[in-house]
């Protein structure tokens, strides 16, 4: 009988511990929610158009793609190797990797077959790899 009473009291302690655990956990979540960092945002409609564009950036891109000026390469050796490629291959690589056009689009623009684009790409990459493998020496 006494043992049964003890177990009933133990049940109270266990029940309270569980209740308190949940209460404290929720209090913590509540606290974290209240103190979370708020990032100030501005609706896109309120931003002036000038702020969205980067001045001169588009010109730089166009100039780079036009082929009249030199394209800036992160690695100097790659730039040197690229110059050695024929203009047609340079153009195909630029359209593929800079302008991110699909081979079928390039084939349409250059009036050639898609297979020709693939061939030129693989040949150009092969040449580049060879040049870079030689330590950036000219292909000759």
């Amino acid at each position, binding site marked *: 009988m006494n043992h049964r009473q003890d177990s009933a*009291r133990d049940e*109270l302690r266990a029940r309270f511990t569980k*209740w308190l*655990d949940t*209460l*404290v956990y929720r*209090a*913590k979540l*509540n*606290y974290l929610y209240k103190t979370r960092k708020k990032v100030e945002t501005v609706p896109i409609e309120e931003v002036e158009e000038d702020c969205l564009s980067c001045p001169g950036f588009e010109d730089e891109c166009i100039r780079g793609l036009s082929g009249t000026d030199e394209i800036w390469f992160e690695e100097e050796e790659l730039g040197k190797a690229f110059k050695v490629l024929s203009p047609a291959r340079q153009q195909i690589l630029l359209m593929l990797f800079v302008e991110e056009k699909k081979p079928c689009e390039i084939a349409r623009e250059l009036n050639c077959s898609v297979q020709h684009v693939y061939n030129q790409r693989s040949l150009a990459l092969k040449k580049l790899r060879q040049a870079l493998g030689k330590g950036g020496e000219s292909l000759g």
Partner: protein
Amino acid sequence: MDEREFREVLKGAVAGIHEDLEELLRMYMPMINKYSMRNGQLDEDLRQYIMIHVALNISKFGI
């Protein structure tokens, strides 16, 4: 503290007796400290917030 004393303390805390509430909080301080950890460090503000939250809600516990 045996089970009978615990029941008395709990009853007192639920009834709003400050000393009993203090005793109860002291008893459960390890749990409160565990939940007061943020990024591996004890957050005093969080611990205070939790203790206030417990004090405000203890009366809702049904014995």
